[in-house]
C-alpha cells in the first residue's frame, strides 16, 4: 500500500509547478557554481605551486648555507587549495590558513593569502553543500508544508483514511515521496556538476572524490529527511496549509538565517575569550619578567666566537622567552578552539549547521582539516628539532646551546637539503573523518527520529475533518 501512496505522491510532486521551478533553479545554480569554481581553481593552484616552489628554494638555500638558520628562521606553511572544494568549501577562505613555525615552536596561525577582499561582504560559495543546505532545504519544506493540512482542506485526507490504511503508512508514504522528489533534484544537479568537472579536465575526479560524493549523497539524504520531517511536522501542527507554510518558513528562517547569522554574536557574548591585545600584553609582561631576572651578559652576542660564555646565558634566556610566549599563546589558542567548538555545539539545533559540520568530515576540510594540520605541524616541529639536534651534535664547532631566535651558539654548517624533513599535509584518514562525523551523525539521526515520531503522534490524533 505504501508503494501506491509513494508513487501517487511522486507523480503529484513531479508535475507540480514548485518542482519545475525549484528544479530549474537548482540546476542553474549547480552549473553556474561549478563553472565558476573551475574557472578559479587553475589560478589558485598556480599561485599555490609558485608559493611552494619559492618555499622549497628558500629552504634549500638556507640548508646549503647554514643549518642554524634553517632551525631558527620562522616559516609559514600554507595549505593547498582543495580539489574537492566544489562539494563543500567549508568556508576555508575565511579560515586562518597560514601556520607560522620554526624548529623550536609552532607559533600560531593567521588568515593567509588568497584570502578575502575586506571590502566585499562575507558570502558563501555556490558549491553543492550550499545549494543543498539552503535551496533544497527550502524546496523540501515547500513539498511538505501542506502534505497533511492541504489534503485536509481539499477533503482528500478523509477519503484516504476512510480506507483500511493505517495513518502511519499514509504519513510515511508522503514523507518518503517528498524526500525522493528533492533527492531527484540533488542527484541531477550533482551529476551535471560532475559532468562539467569531467569535461573541463582541470580537476582530477579521483576515486576518493567519487567515494566522497557517495557519502555526501547519503548525508544529503539524511539532511533532507530531517528537513522533510520538520516540514511534515508543521503541516501536522497546522489545520490550514497557510499556517503550515508560515510555521515551516519560520523554522527555515531560524535555522538558515538567524542561527548562522547570530552565531558570532552568541560566541562573543556567552563564550567570550580575552582580546588578542590583552594576550600580547601578557606575553610582553612575562617576557619582561624573564629579561629582568636574567643574569648580566644575557644580551651579549658575537658572530665570531660561538663558544663565548654569554651565549649560553643568552640561549637560556631566549628559550625562556620562547617558552613563555608559547605557553600563553597555546592557552589562548585552546580558548579559541573551545569557543568555536562550543559555538558549534549551540548551533547544532539547526540541521543546516549540523549538515555543514558533517560535510567537513566528508571532504576533509574546514575545522577538521585545520585541527589535523595544527596537530601534525606540532609533531613535525618536534621531528624537525630532533633532526637539527642530530646535525648539531655531529658538529665539533658548535657548543650545542640551543637558542630559538639566533644561530650564535649552534652549528652553522650546511646540510644536505635532501635530508631535511619537509612538512606535507596529509589528508584526513577515513577513520579520523568517521570519528569526527560519528557524533554529528548520531545527533542527526536522533533529530530525525524525534521530529518524525512527534509528527506521527500528532498525526495519529489529527482531526481530518
Amino acid at each position, binding site marked *: 500500500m505504501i508503494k501506491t501512496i509513494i508513487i501517487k505522491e511522486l507523480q503529484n510532486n513531479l508535475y507540480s509547478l514548485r518542482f519545475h521551478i525549484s528544479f530549474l533553479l537548482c540546476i542553474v*545554480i549547480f552549473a553556474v557554481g561549478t563553472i565558476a569554481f573551475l574557472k578559479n581553481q587553475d589560478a589558485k593552484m598556480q599561485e599555490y605551486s609558485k608559493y611552494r616552489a619559492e618555499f622549497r628554494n628558500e629552504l634549500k638555500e638556507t640548508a646549503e648555507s647554514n643549518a642554524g638558520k634553517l632551525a631558527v628562521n620562522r616559516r609559514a606553511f600554507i595549505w593547498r587549495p582543495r580539489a574537492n572544494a566544489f562539494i563543500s568549501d567549508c568556508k576555508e577562505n575565511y579560515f586562518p590558513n597560514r601556520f607560522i613555525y620554526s624548529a623550536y615552536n609552532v607559533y600560531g596561525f593567521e588568515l593567509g593569502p588568497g584570502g578575502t577582499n575586506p*571590502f566585499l*561582504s562575507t*558570502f558563501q560559495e555556490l558549491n553543492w553543500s550550499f545549494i543543498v543546505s539552503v535551496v533544497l532545504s527550502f524546496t523540501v519544506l515547500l513539498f511538505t508544508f501542506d502534505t497533511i493540512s492541504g489534503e485536509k482542506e481539499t477533503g482528500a485526507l478523509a477519503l484516504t483514511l476512510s480506507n483500511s490504511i493505517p495513518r502511519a503508512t499514509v504519513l510515511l508514504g508522503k514523507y518518503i515521496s517528498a524526500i525522493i522528489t528533492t533527492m531527484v533534484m540533488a542527484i541531477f544537479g550533482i551529476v551535471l556538476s560532475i559532468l562539467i568537472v569531467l569535461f573541463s579536465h582541470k580537476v582530477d575526479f579521483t576515486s576518493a572524490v567519487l567515494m566522497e560524493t557517495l557519502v555526501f549523497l547519503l548525508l544529503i539524504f539524511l539532511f533532507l529527511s530531517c528537513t522533510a520531517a520538520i516540514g511534515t511536522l508543521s503541516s501536522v501542527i497546522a489545520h490550514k496549509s497557510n499556517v503550515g507554510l508560515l510555521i515551516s*518558513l519560520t523554522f527555515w528562517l531560524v535555522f538558515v538565517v538567524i542561527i548562522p*547569522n547570530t*552565531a*558570532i554574536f552568541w560566541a562573543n557574548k556567552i563564550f567570550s575569550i580575552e582580546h*588578542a591585545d590583552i594576550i600580547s600584553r601578557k606575553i610582553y609582561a612575562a617576557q619582561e619578567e624573564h629579561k629582568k631576572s636574567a643574569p648580566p651578559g644575557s644580551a651579549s652576542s658575537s658572530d665570531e666566537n660561538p663558544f663565548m660564555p654569554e651565549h649560553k646565558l643568552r640561549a637560556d634566556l631566549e628559550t625562556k622567552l620562547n617558552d613563555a610566549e608559547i605557553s600563553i599563546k597555546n592557552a589562548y589558542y585552546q580558548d579559541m578552539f573551545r569557543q568555536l567548538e562550543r559555538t558549534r555545539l549551540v548551533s547544532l539545533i539547526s540541521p543546516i549547521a549540523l549538515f555543514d559540520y558533517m560535510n567537513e568530515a566528508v571532504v576533509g576540510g574546514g575545522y577538521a582539516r585545520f585541527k589535523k594540520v595544527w596537530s601534525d605541524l606540532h609533531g613535525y616541529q618536534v621531528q624537525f628539532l630532533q633532526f637539527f639536534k642530530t646535525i648539531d651534535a655531529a658538529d665539533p664547532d658548535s657548543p650545542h646551546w640551543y637558542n630559538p631566535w639566533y644561530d650564535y651558539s649552534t652549528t652553522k654548517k650546511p646540510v644536505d637539503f635532501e635530508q631535511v624533513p619537509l612538512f606535507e599535509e596529509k589528508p584526513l584518514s577515513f577513520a579520523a573523518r568517521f570519528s569526527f562525523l560519528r557524533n554529528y551523525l548520531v545527533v542527526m539521526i536522533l533529530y530525525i527520529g524525534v521530529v518524525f515520531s512527534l509528527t506521527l503522534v500528532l498525526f495519529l490524533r489529527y482531526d481530518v475533518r
Partner: protein
Amino acid sequence: MVWKIAKKEFLLNLMTFKFAVGTIVCVVLTVVFMPVLVSDYQERLKQYNDAVAANEAELRKVKVYKNITPTIYRCPNVLSVFSEGLEKRLGYSAKIELDNVPELSAVSTGLNPYLSIYPILDVSLVFKIVMSVLALLVAYDIIAGERERGTLKLVLSGTVARYQVLAGKFLAGMVTLVIPLTMAFIVGMLIFEFFPLVDLAGSDWVRIGLMYLASLIFLSAMYNVGLLFSCLVKRSPISLVLGLFVWVVCVIVIPNGSGYLARKIQSLEPEEKLESELKLVAENRDRELKEINKKIPPGWSSSDAGGAFNRTYYLILDKRGLEYWKKSSVLKEPVRIKYADKFLEVKQKHLRNLFKQKYLANNFSRTSPISLFENIMSALAGTDLARAQYFMDRVRMHRRNVVEYVRSKTADFSSLSYFTRCKEGDWEEHNKTLEAAMGAANEAERKRVLDAFLKWRDKKIAETAALNLQDFPQFIYQPSLARSFSRAIPDLALLTFVSFLFFVLSFVAFMRYDVRSG
C-alpha cells in the same frame, strides 16, 4: 471607494495569523539584538574617546617638530547599529607621518579569527529578512485568494473599477506592513534612550527618518512582487510558492552568488606583488637617501631623549652634530615626502583592484531588491565604502596641512627646532660634566659625578618646554547628510522604480484577470 476597500482589507489583514507572527517576530528580534548592538557601540565609543584623549595628551608633550606624529581615529558610527556595512572591517586609525600617506586598510579585530566565517549582524538584517517575507505573505493571496473564495467576482460586479480595487489593496497592504516596521523602529529608538551615553544628533534623526522611508519603499517593492504573482496566477498557493522562490533568489542566491562570481571573474593580484612593489619603492628611496648622505659632512650625535609619540629627539648636540642634522633634514625630508606619495600610488593601485571587485559584486547584486536596500541603508547610515574613503581623504588632507605646518614653522626643516631644543652653550656644559665623570679617581667619586650628570640631564629635559602648538591644524571631518543622501539616491531611485514597475505589471495583469472562480 479606494479608501473603503483599503480600510476593509486592512482590518482583515490585522486579524490574520501571519500578521501577528510577523509583528511579534520583528519586535522581539529588535528587542533582543538592539541592546547588544548599542552596548557594543558604546564600548567602541569609549575606546575611541580614550584613544583621542591619549593622542591629545601626547600632542601637548611634543618638544620638537619632527616628533609630531599624531594618530587620527575614526569615530564609531552610532548608526552602524542599523546597518553595519564596513564599519567594523576597516581600520579605525591613521597615523600622520611625514614619510607615509595613510590609506584604507582592513582591520584585524583581535577577535577569534575563526569567527570571521560568520556574517555580520545588524538591525537591517531583521527588516530585510523578516519584513520582506511578511510583505510577500500579506500580498500573495490578495487577488488569487479572493478569486478562490469567490468574493472578487462579487466586488467587481458593482460599480468599482478594477484599478480602484488594486489601489485599495495596495494601500491596505502597505498600511498593514507599516505597523510592524514602525513598531520595530519605535522600540529601537526607545532602547537608544536607555543608554544615556549614546547621543543621537539632529542629523542622525534625519538619517533614521530616511532609513524608515527607504524601508517603506523596500517593503512596497517586496509587496508588489507578491501582488504581481497574485495577479498572474489563479491559485493562491502557487502565487505564494512563486513569491517565495523569488525571495530565496533575492535574499540568498543573488547576494552570495554575486560576491562569488565577482571574485571568480575579477581576480585579485596576489598580496606578494604589492609587497614587492612597495619594497622596490623603499629601495629606491633608501638609495636616494644614501646618495644625499654622502654629500653631508658626517656629524656625531650624542644623547637622545624620549619624546612624544614614542619618538626621540636630540637633547644635546655638538656643532658638527647640529650641522649634520640640519643639512640632513633639509635635504632628506623632501625626499621622504616625495616617496610617501609614491608608496601611496602603489597602494592605491592595489586598492583600486579590490574596489573593482567590490563594484562588480555590487552591480551583480543590484538585481535583488534586498541588496539595493542594503546599499541604501549603509549609505544613509554612513557605513559604506564611500564614507570610509571620504574619511581617508580628510586624513590625507590633514596630513598635508600638518606637513605644511611643520615646514612653515621650521623654515623648510632648516630650523633647529625641527629635531632638537639644544642651544650652542649646552654642549660645553654637557662636556664638562661628562669629562668630570670620565676622569673620576674612584668609584664613589664617579658615582657622584654621574649622578650630577643625570641630574643635569633631567633638569635639561624638564626645562625644555613643549612646543606651542596653538595654531596646529585641526582635523576636520564632517560627514554631510547631503552627500550620504546623494549616494543613496541611485539605489533608492532604482528600488522605487522596481516597486513601481511591479505595481504597473500587476495592474496590467489584473486588468486581464479572469475573476471567475472554480
